[in-house]
């Protein structure tokens, strides 16, 4: 089984790109990733592409061949859709393809164009990640679903909803120096607590923004990296994926995410690591409560202790396990299909020491990407490790 190297990364700025087509956003990210890897489009043997709602956003299905063309790639191109985990599932498929020798060099990317839909349109579009019959028709929105999870968590552990604000404050603060982030501005706990409610107990600052953007990374086999003298010090050493009931009402617990637990268990086993080995993590904080559930599912904290740990600063730059040094979805932004790929791009820079927040880490070697779809009915976890030696 071939080891998988990350040879290049590319991202558009995340934010509002009014009028820019998805194909143009992806072309920017894909070309950046290829240039970063110092490879040509002709070197790429497969495109794995994540996108959630291109049909709704810009009336464009069948995006993979179109977007391959936009980057100049003439190779098999396949789209992956798993709601907000679309990017993560594309990464996982790309890792598997390189591992099993089907391809030596692949481009994996994702795009979402959302802001032109407006708040109501995007809210409606995002809701299709839920069960249409038993959730959407019952008035459940995406923020409403996470609000139900938050409500259940706070009730189960007798926790204070205001404490969620500490996660929003941390992620905004981390994003201040991230030039690709949707928001590069700090907020206070008071800002978050006093903001209008979107779906109680969650307010405006508990929610990630609606963003446009694209991300791409080049994955190669270790032998390809050696043969082409690529600067690719970071490897993907573990990949895992889990599934849960789509509808919240069908789950045993509203405040646990077993799909992410399964994904983490698989990825950790492949990489032969434990949660204690992890130096930093990019997790799917579409809402503040989602980061709490993620850090518990990844084993950083026991169930019921994630929120208190966040309040105590354990996940800040100075904490025991820095989480979302990029700003996370919360402040970096969440162009849905791009998110899972962008996490890989951010972690690659963090482990390479080239990230704007690299000074928060002391010689890091292991990073984790946690990407979730819907209310975590799909979850992917990837383990990235800095392994400079090449065995080929």
């Amino acid at each position, binding site marked *: 089984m071939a080891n998988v190297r990350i040879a290049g990364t590319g991202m558009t700025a995340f934010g509002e790109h009014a009028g820019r087509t998805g194909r143009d956003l992806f072309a920017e990210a894909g070309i950046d990733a290829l240039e970063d890897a110092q490879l040509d489009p002709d070197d790429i043997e497969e495109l794995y592409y994540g996108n959630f709602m291109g049909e709704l956003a810009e009336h464009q299905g069948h995006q993979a061949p179109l977007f391959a063309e936009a980057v100049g790639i003439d190779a098999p191109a396949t789209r992956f859709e798993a709601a907000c985990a679309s990017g993560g599932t594309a990464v996982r498929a790309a890792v598997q393809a390189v591992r099993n020798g089907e391809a030596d060099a692949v481009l994996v990317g994702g795009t979402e164009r959302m802001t032109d839909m407006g708040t*109501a349109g995007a*809210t409606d579009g995002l809701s299709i990640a839920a069960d249409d019959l038993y959730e959407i*028709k019952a008035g459940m*929105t995406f923020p409403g679903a996470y609000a139900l999870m938050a409500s259940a968590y706070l*009730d189960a552990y007798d926790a204070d909803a205001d404490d969620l604000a500490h996660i929003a404050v941390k992620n905004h603060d981390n994003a201040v120096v991230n030039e690709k982030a949707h928001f590069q501005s700090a907020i206070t706990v008071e800002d978050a607590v006093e903001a209008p409610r979107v*779906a109680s107990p969650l307010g405006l600052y508990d929610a990630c923004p609606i963003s446009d953007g694209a991300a791409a990374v080049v994955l190669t086999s270790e032998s390809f990296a050696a043969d082409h003298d690529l600067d690719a010090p970071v490897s993907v050493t573990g990949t895992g994926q889990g599934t849960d*009931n789509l509808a919240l*009402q069908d789950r045993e617990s509203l405040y646990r995410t077993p799909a992410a637990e399964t994904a983490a268990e698989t990825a950790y086993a492949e990489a032969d690591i434990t949660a204690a080995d992890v130096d930093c993590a990019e997790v799917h904080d579409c809402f503040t409560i989602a980061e709490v559930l993620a850090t518990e599912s990844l084993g950083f904290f026991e169930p019921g202790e994630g929120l208190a740990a966040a309040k105590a600063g354990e996940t800040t730059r100075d904490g025991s396990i820095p989480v979302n040094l990029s700003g996370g979805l919360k402040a970096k932004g969440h162009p849905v299909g791009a998110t899972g790929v962008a996490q890989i791009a951010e972690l690659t820079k963090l482990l390479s020491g080239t990230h704007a927040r690299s000074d928060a880490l002391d010689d890091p070697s292991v990073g984790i990407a946690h990407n979730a779809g819907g209310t975590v009915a799909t979850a992917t976890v990837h383990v990235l490790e800095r392994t400079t030696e090449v065995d080929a």
Partner: protein
Amino acid sequence: MSPEMRHNGYDNLLDAIEDGEGYYLACPEGHGSLPPRRVCPECGSRDLTDEPLPDAGEVVAATTVSVPGPKFADDAPYVTAIVDFGPVRLTGVVRGTDEEPGPGFVVGVDVEETTTEGERVVTFRPR
């Protein structure tokens, strides 16, 4: 937005709830699920039978939605809740109470119309 069409199974259940004859699907192991299903999601049994939906259930979690989707624009703010009826849980809009209900609040299930478009929606009212 979902196209206007009938969804057999789901719409049959709403018809039954409107008639006061709500039901759920039960497998021989006692697992409950909601139609349309051919397989018990818990154990894989294909031997599913209709059983009467309990008359009342308890709120598991509730939220007051202030930013709705277009089909609920004129309904907001409204309360969405997941209610536990024992063998199955249902999601719907809570009506008939001014307070956002907490866990354990007892409700019955009905089918009413949304304010925005007059579409059928599962509702819960205090019992």
